[in-house]
């Protein structure tokens, strides 16, 4: 019965060991998919390389369906799986700032660590920027604390929010993902591309 750590089936130190192993899997898959290259990642915004859309949505629906099936089989108690909290305004403003950071820097935090691991110097500089950005946030915290904590909606699931069952909502996400894959394949044929 999972999740294992919240149910105390495994100890805290084993959980940290698993965190390290899961991280290895995470980094390995991202690098194999080409997420260590900023020009490949930025391709999503210009249509010449849509690997981000393909990997991101395939990953999301695989994990989403996996969790639903695990729950159906009684393997995992979804009430103990962490659902990100929703603070409306900080989600939107934070997301917009991150989007700007993405198009300027060409990386997101996870991919920058992958890039740096294989020697990308631009990724190392991006990571330096990350530390500065986080420090600005923590040091100036009183200035944006109001925005950070505004409109706390708890941790709603989007399915509950729309009054749908989890399974039906997952089906909608799959349809959406298939549409995105179709657009992605079309875009890559339309815009010129080279391997980085």
């Amino acid at each position, binding site marked *: 019965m999972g999740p294992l750590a919240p149910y105390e089936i495994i100890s805290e130190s084993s959980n940290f060991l698993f965190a390290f192993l*899961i991280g290895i899997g995470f980094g390995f898959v991202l690098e194999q998919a080409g997420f260590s290259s900023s020009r490949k990642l930025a391709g999503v915004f210009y249509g010449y390389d849509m690997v981000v859309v393909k990997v991101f949505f395939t990953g999301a629906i695989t994990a989403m369906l996996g969790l639903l099936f695990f729950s159906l089989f009684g393997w995992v108690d979804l009430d103990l799986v962490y659902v990100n909290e929703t603070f409306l305004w900080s989600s939107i403003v934070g997301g917009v700032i991150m989007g700007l950071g993405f198009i300027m820097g060409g990386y997101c935090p996870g991919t920058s660590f992958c890039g740096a691991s294989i020697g990308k110097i631009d990724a190392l500089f991006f990571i330096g920027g990350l530390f500065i950005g986080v420090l600005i946030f923590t040091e100036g915290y009183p200035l944006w604390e109001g925005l950070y904590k505004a409109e706390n909606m708890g941790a709603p699931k989007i399915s509950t929010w729309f009054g749908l069952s989890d399974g039906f909502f997952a089906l909608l996400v799959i349809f959406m993902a298939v549409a995105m894959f179709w657009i992605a394949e079309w875009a890559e044929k339309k815009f010129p591309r080279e391997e980085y």
Partner: protein
Amino acid sequence: MQVRQVVICIKPFNDKPMEKVKKMKYMNPYIAGVLLGLVLLAANFIAGRGLGLSGAVKSAVISAVQTVAPSHAENASFYKEYKAQHSESPLKNWLVFQMLGVIVGAFVSGVISRRITWKVEHSPKITSRKRLVFAVMGGILFGFGSQLGRGCTSGAALSGMAVMSLGGFITMMAIFGTGFAMAYFFRKLWI
């Protein structure tokens, strides 16, 4: 006296320059996506939580501030709030161990696929220097935004989507929406 000249010609073991050594192709993105989903599923099944990198950076920053300026960390509101919620060292954190794994995993992948090399990757239209300046600026914005938005592309958008979090969806739409909206203005950096 005649001197005999002996010319020894050594053929290099690998006569191709390093750049010519063929890099291995990237994995099929849909297969990589399924594997990524399985890693994320494992994280949720084992630890009851998703993946994330910005949380690990936050832990490192907080730990650094506590070490360098302990009295400041005792008084400034963010660190006080953090300490009230976390009794242990900020580095004794799931995401920190996961981040160390990411570095190892990506390095192993790079070794296997022969992609390890020092390089500043940039469009031929800009200089390395310009690329690095924008990389730092992008990193600062991403670091700040990830704290405000309570997670980055992996922690909020990807992991949030897998558990159908409303906030995760909103953050994902905001990140990619802004990226597309701003792509035109930064096109010289990439194409």
